[in-house]
C-alpha cells in the first residue's frame, strides 16, 4: 500500500505494517484478530460501531484474520460477519494501539 490510500475511502491491506506517517501519539488504533474455534478467519467483514451503535467503518480481515481501525479514544463495538458465523466485542480505546479479539460462531 502506498501513501496515496489516504486520499481514498477504501481500506488499506489490513496486515500491512502501519504507514510511517501514522503518529501513535495522536492516532487511536484498534486492531486484532477474528477467530472461530481459535483459528483465524480470513475474509471476515468487521464493522466498527460507535458508542450509539452507529456504523463508523468496515474492513475485511487479512489472510491472518487481522483487522485494523483508526478511531478516537472512547468505547467502540466491533461486529464481525463471516461464513463461520458472526460475533461482537466491545473495546475501550485510548491513544496508541488497542488490541481486541473478536470470536465468531454460527
Amino acid at each position, binding site marked *: 500500500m502506498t501513501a496515496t*490510500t*489516504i*486520499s*481514498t*475511502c*477504501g*481500506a*488499506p*491491506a489490513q496486515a500491512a505494517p502501519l*504507514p510511517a*506517517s*501514522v*503518529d501513535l501519539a*495522536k*492516532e487511536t488504533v484498534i486492531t486484532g484478530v477474528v477467530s472461530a474455534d481459535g483459528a483465524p478467519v480470513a*475474509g471476515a*467483514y468487521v*464493522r*466498527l460501531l*460507535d458508542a*450509539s451503535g*452507529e*456504523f*463508523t*467503518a*468496515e*474492513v*475485511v480481515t487479512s489472510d491472518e484474520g487481522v483487522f*485494523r*481501525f*483508526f*478511531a*478516537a479514544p472512547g468505547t467502540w463495538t466491533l*461486529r464481525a*460477519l*463471516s*461464513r463461520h458465523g458472526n460475533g461482537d466485542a466491545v473495546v475501550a480505546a485510548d491513544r496508541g494501539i488497542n488490541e481486541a479479539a473478536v470470536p465468531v460462531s454460527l
Partner: protein
Amino acid sequence: MSRDNALVSADWAEKNLGQPGLVFVEVDEDTSAYNGGHLPGAIKIDWKTELQDQVRRDFVNKAQFEALLSRKGVANDDTVILYGGNNNWFAAYAYWYFKLYGHGQVKLLDGGRKKWELDNRPLVTEVPNRAETSYTAQEQDLTIRAFRDEVVAAIGAKNLIDVRSPDEYAGRLLAPAHLPQEQSQRAGHIPTALSVPWSKAANEDGTFKSDDDLRALYAEAGLDNGKSTIAYCRIGERSSHTWFALHELLGEADVKNYDGSWTEYGSLVGVPIALGDEPGKA
C-alpha cells in the same frame, strides 16, 4: 426510477451470469479483491486509475470514458450490472458515473461483494476476454452533479445531506475510521446539513433497506420533499450510495451528488462550517 430497474438481487445475478447483453463489472479500489476472485465473467474497473483524471482532480472526460468502455468491451446497448466491496460504495459511485455519461441500462447488485461472499456464491479468477467496442457517451448530465458554488448557495435553501459517520459530521474524526486521521482540511460539516449516515440506508449484509424503511429514514431525519437535495460525504462515493437510494430507489426528482465533498469543502477559504452534532444555522 425504481427498485426493479435499478437493483438486482444476488439470486437473480447468479441465475443470469453469462447472459448475452449483460456485463458484470466489479468496481473496487482494492484491485486485489477482483484478482483473488470475482463473479464469473465479470470485468474490473478501477475507480481511481480509470475513472479519475490522473492529473487534475476531476473525472475522466467524455472521450476518456468512451475509450475506457470501448477497451473494456462494453457496448451502448449492454445492461451493466455493477458490484463491489465497501458495501457497494465504489460500485454506486461508478453507477452514478454511468448515469452521468448517459448509459442506458445500468443496475447495482444488491449487497455487492459482501453478500455474494457471505452467501458462498461462486467466485473465479479467470479474466474474461471481451471484444473491443466502439462506445459513445453522452455529455455529462449535470442535473445529478453538484459543484462547490452550488453547495454554498444551498445552505439554508436546499436539503443538504451529510452521509458520513456521526463522528466525521461532528468534526471528531476527519476520515472513516479505517484510515489514518491526519488531513489538511478543517473538520465539521456544511451548516444546515442533516446527518444521515449512508449506513442507515443499508442492512448489515450490504443490501439496501426497503423503500418504506428508506422513506421513513429520510422523513425522520427532516428531509423536505418539497426541496431539491444535495448529498455529500468525504470524496463522493458514500454519497453516491445515498444518491442511489434517494434518486434511483425512491424516485426523488432533484437529487445531486457533490463529488467534491468534504475534501474540497473543508479546504475552501472563507466558507461557513458547523461543528458538533447539530446541523447549525445558515
